[in-house]
């Protein structure tokens, strides 16, 4: 079971504990020192898909919006793709045996803000190292144009 799903049960258990805590101490415990997040630098790209302050504040809504657009309406190729985040923000991850994943990047902030996301129980957080395939998928029209050029060269198409 992944983080997000564990979260449900943990919340239930935590809820009970906190309740008990309230009753016993009469006040909630104060969290200790938590380091301010410094998310890992993007592995790729000069700029993010939107201005940084906007990304920091609003990435969840952008993602959710795009997710509905893609899955329910079939709109592809817009900027706020989860695949895209993974593609640029995956960095070597000790927990994954050194493979590039997006977990360190997303998690730094999220554990600071006590946010749990379940996205990566389904979506792979691993960078797709097969770059040709990924690019091809994301930009079909360019690929088709290149294909046409190529076929012309081979004089298949006259």
């Amino acid at each position, binding site marked *: *079971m992944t983080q*997000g*799903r564990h*979260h*449900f*049960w943990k919340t239930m258990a935590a809820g009970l504990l906190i309740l008990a805590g309230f009753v016993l101490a009469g006040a909630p415990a104060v969290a200790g020192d938590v380091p301010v997040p410094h998310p890992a630098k993007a592995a790729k790209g000069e700029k993010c898909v939107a201005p940084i302050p906007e990304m920091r504040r609003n990435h969840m809504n952008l993602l959710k919006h795009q997710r509905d657009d893609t899955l329910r309406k079939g709109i592809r190729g817009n900027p706020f793709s989860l695949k895209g985040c993974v593609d640029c923000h995956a960095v070597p991850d000790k927990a994954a045996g050194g493979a590039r994943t997006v977990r360190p990047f997303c998690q730094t902030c999220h554990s600071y803000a006590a946010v749990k996301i*379940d996205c990566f129980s389904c979506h792979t957080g691993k960078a797709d190292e097969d770059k040709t395939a990924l690019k091809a998928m994301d930009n079909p029209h360019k690929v088709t144009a290149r294909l046409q050029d190529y076929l012309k060269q081979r004089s298949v198409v006259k």
Partner: protein
Amino acid sequence: MARLTDNYHKLTDHGPFFYALLFGHAIVILLGLASAYYMEHNGHYVTGMNNQIVWGMPHVFAVFLIVAASGALNVASISSVFNRLAYKRFARLSGILAISLLAGGLAVLVLDLGRPDRLIIAMTHYNFKSIFAWNIYLYTGFFVIVGIYLWTMMEKRMNRFTTIAGYSAFVWRLILTTGTGSIFGFLVAREAYDTALLAPLFIASSFVYGLAFTVLVLITMCWTLGIQLMDKEFVTKIRGLLIIFTVTVLYFTAVQHITNLYATQHHGVEGFLLLYGGSFPTVFWLGQVAIGSVLPMLVLAHPKIGPTRQGLSTASVLLLIGGLSQMYVVIVGGQSYPLDIFPGMEATSSWIDGKFGSYIPSVPEVVLGVSGISLTMFLTGMALKVLPFLPNPVAGEE
């Protein structure tokens, strides 16, 4: 009939037995939660359910409890809607039991979801075409209406609204059980379900289960308190009702099977459920018919045992066993008969085609189901302690 006035009390005068009961139920509830956690943690492969038998034991118990919830309201309805005074004393108990049964059933249903953590989605996203979504409204509405109904009964100034609230609750619960039956009845793809008869069958069944639960709770309370809550007249009336309701369920069950048998293309599924389908014919004939209907009717009809409290409680336990068997045959049996995608052909594949479903329930899923009953009883017990739901003992007896 003793007093008809506002003579109710909270459960205060009980011995340690009551706490032992509550404690026992609390343990089962915890075991149920642990089972749900175990199922969620590992995934549903640890249950007996699979891609053919997609609904199993948790659903058998959940639907059983939800159906019973509407039936538990019977006693209250008879008093408010049909104006029978003999039942009025038990109207409050019947209301609170109905709410608890529904809560127990829904809890099991929710804990079996693939993603119970997404419950909030079920409450914020509706597909208005889905019967399941209508049911969410029906269930919420049931809590509210029965709650109001109880309030009108228990608050003096509200008494004048009791009749109207009672009527609303009566209509609502008929719709609710129709909705529950239709969850299956609308499944045109499944031969065992595709029938409008499931709705009236479920309504008749709800009368049996609900009344049986009411009887058992009352008799347990008599035990715990060492007092007598039901007078002779009431016992006789309940005895009669249980017999009539059981006959009705048998009647609808027979009609359902006979109409199905009339159409030759349904002989396969009928033969499966009634004759050769492994455990299902056994559960049907032995569980639902023999132990769950005929035997309790014999007990009830017996001139000496029938009109006694022991007779009633024995019959009620048997009827509930019959009810669980019935739900098992309807829910699991109905899924076990292969889909007829290719009429006239023998189909085989690496998947479900042409296969009779095999379902061996695992311990956790059964425990989860049983914990729904415990939750119901726990909630009822707590409610009885907090508010005056119980009628005062009948005078002059015992």
